[in-house]
Structure formats: structure tokens, C-alpha cells
């Protein structure tokens, strides 16, 4: 087998042919220093990056097209695989958008549980970003500490959902199942571990000369640039703009929680690290409040349009059997219309734009993925820096291929 493989991209940076000392270096799409399948074509003058041309799409798998061929419920495993570091937030953001279209009001217990689990996922996501960034700078100890902690969270979430990474735990109108026995007790232990491990990271990293030299004033964005390029989440907040959907237009139970929105000063790699670390602390604070206020009661709304009937009823009465059958085969009927519903994902504004024609399958599903938007500003963060800075700067953006390329 010897087929010539066509180049999938056309570079914006072309060789000049002159003897001006400029060099074009291609990084990726499969490169040990880019944790994510992305290609960056750089034009260098010595070690300095003059221009960068960022190409994504290597993980494109037709998510939006596939969604149009399944029922509303069947999409939950797909949205899990967008940002697979915090799959629960994707679940809840998608379900929330469908619930808005159907006019469903969640039960009090599910509102708080989804909030709690979103924050728990946010911790796992931020840990991944910080850990990978540190590893790429050579800080293996910090990486292993953080991965240990993340594994406690993954194992703990597996107790609840049955899977470590992609959970399929959200349901339209509720959740797949309630908390198992002893789950909250273990949660308390994991949060204690969090404090131990994160304390070690602060001690190892915060005032470390090497870390500061590599991160401070590297990959900077001004607030104007961040807004102009549609940045959201930790990247926008690191520039000093305190915009957070959880605070500005609260959803789920966020209006009842006490938390701060941490911001940075310079919008550089160091600020993005600090913002993520502080956001994790706020998340722990929120989780503890959620546990304290968690109400008893059902997790699923009582609405035959979307929630499967109780199994015993399915076996006993014809109405429930038909209801079950119609929900599985035809899918929940979502009223015709459109909605854009956004939640604060770990990387920024995670929006779902859904269009329904009143059928059991969506007409159009569009995901506004923060990673994709952030790839559009990456060249500004790289240009003017050193070639070696590409690695920590790209790491601090936390590009997740699953959600960027869809």
C-alpha cells in the first residue's frame, strides 16, 4: 500500500524563498508537546514566533450531523464526548436546553445535584489542565499529585454513574439515578484529599522561579482582545473581566450559593493558572454548600412527555407501556421552536443552539464550543513569544479536541 496522502491543510504561511533567516516550523497535529490533536504552523525568526497559523478539525466526527438522526434522548452519550474532561457539564447544559424548550421545571433535588456535580466536574477539568501544563514544563511530581486527585474524583463519579469519564448521567427532566449509599460521605473525604494535594501544588509551584519565568507575561491577552475574540471562562477572567454565567444570569441553584468570581491582572499564562486554582477552591466551597442544602425528594419530574414511566407500571398498565414504547422509539416530543441556552463550562460559555420542528428528533443541534472559539485567538497569544512558549501557552488554553472539532 503506497498511496500519496494529500495535505489536509493549506498553510497561510508560505516560504518566501529569500535569505532572510526566517524559518517555517510545523508543530503537530501529532506532537508530544501538544496535548490535543492540533496543528500549529509557525514562522520563526530565530526562536521568536513571528506568525502562527492554527489548524483544528483533526478530531471532527460529524457530531452535529449525527445528532439530526437520533432522538433527543439518544444524544446524551454524544454530548458527553464533547468536553470529555467534564462530561457532566455537557450533559446538564444539553438537557437544560431541551428542558427550556419543553418548559420543564426541575425538581429541587435535581437542581442542587446538577449544581454539585457540575462543580465537581469543573474541578476534574481544571485539574487536567493545570496538571498537563505543569507536566509539559517538567514538573512531574505536581502532575502525579494532581492525577492522583483526579483519579479519586473519577472513581467516585464511577460509583455514581458507572463510568469514569463519559457518564451519560443526565436525563431530560432529571438524572439517571439518585446518589448511592455513602456517596456523600466519600465526597467529604475526597474534598479533604483535595485540600491536601492542592496545598502541595501551591507549595511546589506558586513561587517557583522556573514556573514564574515560564508563565509570567507569556501568552498575554488584553481584556479588549479577549472580548473582541469571544473569549469566555478562565481565559476571559484572567484578563480581569469578571464575567461568569453562574453569577451574571444564574441557572440551576447558583443563585442560592455564595461564591466569588476570581479574576487575573495581566491575562497571561500565570493568571490563567491562578484563576483555575482559585476557581477550584470556589467549586469546593459551592459543593459543601450544595451538600448542606441538598433537599430530599424525587430526581425526575413527573412529566410523561420525557421521563420514562416507573418499570412496575410498564408491566401492569397499557398506558405506561405505550408511553415507554413511544418515548424509546419516537423520542420525546419537543415543541417546535429554537433555543440558545448557555451554561458555564469549565472552559467558558458552553452553548447549545437547538432547533425543533416538533418531532422526536432534532432538526438542528449546534454546540457553541469554547475551545473552538479560543483556537481563533491562539495565534495572538503565540505571536511575539518564543518557540518554547508555544507549549505552556497552548496548555493554558485547555483546548479539548472533542469539543473544539465536534
Amino acid at each position, binding site marked *: *500500500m503506497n498511496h500519496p496522502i494529500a495535505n489536509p*491543510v493549506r498553510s497561510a504561511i508560505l516560504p518566501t524563498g529569500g535569505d532572510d533567516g526566517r524559518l517555517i516550523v510545523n508543530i503537530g497535529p501529532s506532537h508530544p508537546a501538544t496535548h490535543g490533536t492540533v496543528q500549529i504552523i509557525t514562522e520563526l525568526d530565530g526562536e521568536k514566533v513571528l506568525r502562527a497559523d492554527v489548524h483544528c478539525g483533526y478530531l471532527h466526527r460529524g457530531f452535529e*450531523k449525527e445528532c439530526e438522526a437520533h432522538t433527543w434522548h439518544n444524544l446524551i452519550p454524544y454530548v458527553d464526548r464533547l468536553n470529555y474532561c467534564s462530561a457532566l457539564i455537557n450533559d446538564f447544559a444539553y438537557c437544560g436546553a431541551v428542558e427550556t424548550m419543553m418548559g420543564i421545571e426541575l425538581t429541587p433535588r435535581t437542581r442542587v445535584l446538577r449544581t454539585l456535580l457540575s462543580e465537581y466536574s469543573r474541578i476534574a477539568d481544571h485539574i487536567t489542565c493545570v496538571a498537563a501544563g505543569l507536566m509539559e514544563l517538567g514538573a512531574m511530581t505536581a502532575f502525579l499529585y494532581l492525577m492522583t486527585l483526579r483519579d479519586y474524583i473519577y472513581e467516585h463519579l464511577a460509583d455514581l454513574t458507572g463510568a469514569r469519564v463519559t457518564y451519560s448521567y443526565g436525563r431530560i427532566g432529571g438524572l439517571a439515578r439518585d446518589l448511592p449509599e455513602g456517596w456523600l460521605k466519600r465526597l467529604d473525604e475526597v474534598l479533604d484529599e483535595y485540600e491536601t494535594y492542592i496545598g502541595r501544588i501551591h507549595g511546589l509551584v506558586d513561587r517557583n522561579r522556573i514556573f514564574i519565568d515560564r508563565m509570567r507575561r507569556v501568552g498575554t491577552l488584553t481584556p479588549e482582545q479577549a472580548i473582541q475574540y469571544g473569549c469566555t471562562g478562565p481565559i476571559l477572567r484572567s484578563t480581569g473581566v469578571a464575567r461568569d454565567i453562574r453569577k451574571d444570569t444564574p441557572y440551576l441553584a447558583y443563585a442560592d450559593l455564595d461564591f466569588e468570581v476570581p479574576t487575573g491582572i495581566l491575562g497571561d499564562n500565570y493568571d490563567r493558572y491562578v484563576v483555575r486554582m482559585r476557581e477550584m477552591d470556589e467549586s469546593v466551597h459551592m459543593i459543601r454548600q450544595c451538600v448542606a442544602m441538598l433537599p430530599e425528594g424525587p430526581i425526575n419530574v413527573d412529566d410523561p412527555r420525557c421521563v420514562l414511566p416507573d418499570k412496575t407500571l410498564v408491566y401492569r398498565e397499557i398506558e405506561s407501556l405505550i408511553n415507554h414504547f413511544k418515548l424509546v422509539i419516537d423520542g420525546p416530543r419537543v415543541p417546535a421552536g*429554537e433555543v440558545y441556552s448557555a451554561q458555564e463550562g469549565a472552559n467558558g460559555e458552553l452553548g447549545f443552539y437547538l432547533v425543533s420542528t416538533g418531532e422526536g428528533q432534532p432538526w438542528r443541534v449546534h454546540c457553541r464550543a469554547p475551545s473552538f*472559539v479560543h483556537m481563533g485567538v491562539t495565534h495572538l497569544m503565540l505571536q511575539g513569544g518564543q518557540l518554547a512558549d508555544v507549549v505552556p501557552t497552548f496548555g493554558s488554553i485547555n483546548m479539548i479536541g472533542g469539543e473544539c472539532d465536534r
Partner: protein
Amino acid sequence: MRDGLVELLDGRLGTTAWLSHGMPVIEIGAGQLPEVVRVLRDELGFDMLLDVTAVDWLGRTPRFEVVWHVFSTRDCQRLRIKTRVPEEASEVDSLVGWYGSAAFMERECHDMFGIRFRGNADLRPILLYEGFVGHPLRKDYDKHHEQPLVPYRDTADRGTQGGPR
């Protein structure tokens, strides 16, 4: 939400405006886009472009609906702009002059629907690859149609492996 925004937009720009699930929506003619965006950004503070996408209403005329979502960091307000474009002239003005984020999003929309954005000089494929034929999110693009860059090996059991049909 900002009070009176819908009323303001409904009268002011000669467009239709309404509320959809709590979000103001305005529908405009494709030619009005630059003027509408100028007013929204410079006078009403919608300083961030969140999203650009399209919907294919195959069978309707005009066929496509291009959808923008903008956000005001001052008022924490989101707004949807919609316009309809026909298949023969699926072209709208680019917003790259106003919003930097438009560059990547318009490339994606061009990839997926073949909508051309007048004024965006860089409409290279972004999620797809060079040489990809067609626009996969159009309703008349078959989901099972495959265009592999690397040809498949010719094996007998390909039928069960989800090979090209």
C-alpha cells in the same frame, strides 16, 4: 434583561424583534446586517460575537437561515440575529471587521453549509480538509457519504466495518 430592548429594536432598525425563551431575537434582511451590527455594537454595547451558525430548511424558500448570537459584557445580555438567504445566492456580509471571533466561526459555517461571508478573505476549510466536496450539514448531504483522504484498503469484510456505501 435590559428593559425595553425588544421595543427599541423593533421600531428602531425596521426589523422584526421578539422574545424567544427569554432571549431577544431580531430578524433582518441580509442587506441590513452591517447597519444592524453597527448599532448593536457601537450604540447598544453588544461587544462580543458568541456564535455564527446556520439552519438548512430544505424545501423552503429561501432555503438557509444564518444565525448569529451576540453578547453584551456590560449588560450580560444575549441576543440572536437571524436572516434568510436563498440557495442560489447564499452570501452574507462578514463580521470580521467588527468581531475578531467571526473569522473562525464563519469558516466553520462556510465549511458546513457553503454560506459565503463577503469580506472574510480566509474561508479555508477549518473542521474539514482541503479538497472536501460538498457541505455536510446541508440536509441533502447523505450522512453515510464518505470521502476518505487515505483510501480504504480493499478487504472482503468491509461491508461489516461501516465502509463506504
